[in-house]
């Protein structure tokens, strides 16, 4: 990837993030933060590539730590976001019963 293309991606992604988030209501700030926490877990694929190309024991150790941490980020981020979102219900949902 050339530098200038990457620069365009940086800029557009930053504006996208800003626009998408600026509409999130205050009551969803925690799930939002937790969800974005999950999204940066994409670092997992980078860590996998790094470990996948490691040769010396030192490289393998660092790569292993990277994948371990990234997997924790992904799974932890998903589980905690899911648990929080499960709890948000409006008055109407309550009347329909606990199944909803």
């Amino acid at each position, binding site marked *: 990837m050339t530098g200038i293309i990457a620069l365009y991606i940086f800029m557009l992604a930053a504006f996208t993030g800003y626009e998408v988030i600026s509409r999130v209501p205050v*009551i969803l700030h925690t799930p939002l933060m937790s969800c974005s926490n999950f999204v*940066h877990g*994409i670092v997992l694929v980078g860590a996998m590539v790094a470990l996948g190309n490691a040769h010396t024991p030192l490289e393998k150790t660092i790569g292993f730590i990277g994948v371990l941490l990234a997997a924790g980020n992904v799974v932890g981020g998903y589980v905690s976001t899911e648990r929080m979102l499960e709890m948000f219900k409006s008055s109407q949902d309550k009347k329909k019963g606990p199944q909803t």
Partner: protein
Amino acid sequence: MRLPHSLTDELIQAVYFLAALLFIVGLKRMSSPKGARGGIVWAGIGMLIAGLITFLWPGMHNDILILTAIFLGGIAAWWSGKRVPMTAMPQMVALYNGMGGGAAAAIACEELIRGRALANAPAVLAVIGAIIGAVSFSGSLIAFAKLQGLINKSLRYGAQQVVNALVFLTTLALGGWMVVLHGAAPSAIVIAFFALALLFGVLVTLPIGGADMPVVISLYNACTGLAVAFEGFVLGNAAMIIAGMVVGAAGTLLTQLMAKAMNRSIANVLFSNFGETAAQGGEIAGSLKPIEASDAAVMMAYASKVIVVPGYGMAVAQAQHKIWELCQLLIERGVTVRFAIHPVAGRMPGHMNVLLAEAGVPYDLIGDLEEINSDFESADVALIIGANDVVNPVARTDKSSPIYGMPILNADKAKNVIVIKRGKGAGFSGIENALFYLDNTRMLYGDAQKAGAELIQAVKTLD
């Protein structure tokens, strides 16, 4: 199974593109409570396909090691994430976030320690990403330890800012040196660089007080996003650049919102050692007037409108269930009950909303600062539960107060104010709360859970 090289490459890029799209759609769906649950599922699918396709990356080996690491990290996080109580969510979010930062730093470390020459731009971004990721990692761990109660004191000493600045500048210098060497620096320098970056994260987070944690947690979230984006550039991975950058921008926006809700700049939160100088501020006339639970219950049961203001004290006492039970009794009696939430109440953005949702409070009863502030004037009772600085009227009136100018909930405008509070001490900032001394304020001393139970009993005996 290996597909032809160019075809695999195109397939991987296509899947990464799809993953990035799913992440953005998922975050977008967070803008309403109805769509939010679908949002995390969309993002989850994106993550799953991106992870799976990465095994086809050309030249990958160590598959067993990769799977072992994913399995171990995943199981540990799944187990902890499932069983942690909702009140402990802020520290878990900090912890998982720190892990992401650590992973980004590990990628950078891998690239730099390999000794392979990098071009100028990747070398610069690898180093910057490494610093941000490492600081986010160690800083988040300290934030976790503080919120978990493992570290109780905020470390502060005389030349703190000078020491921090020195550590940071040395880190930058080593980083600059590695850039000059095109990433092919000796291992000793790489290790010293990472050690210093990690140390800086620890030093800068240690002095920050608990009530500033919403700002800190969302700031480190943004940092990890940026670190991931930069390392994505080094690896030529567009999915990492897009996802990391979106999170970086989102986290920055959220951090700004939090800092604004405290009327302070982000720099002020990080570097001001708030609380140390805060004991000043004007004297407050009047006295604290205690009330019995039975009298407080009568006051609320015969009110037409009650606004509940929860704060960190409610989270500590895990009182959200009792409080909602009390409110349901009041609603049955025909009382209008609303919840008023300050953006920085608790220890992470939206902390109170999550706790109330856990207790079963419908989100349409909850109002934020702008929505509900004008309602206090028509409220008969404002019930303050473990909140302090966010309802302190000196923020409006006393120019000498450190919190002057901070937007607050106007609980003092209600006809009566009942404050549930454990003791007579001042809030985290050490500022006396003028609200507690008003003529129409009564103090109900005790742990929020116990006080809630007493109020429930008292309301029940009224019939």
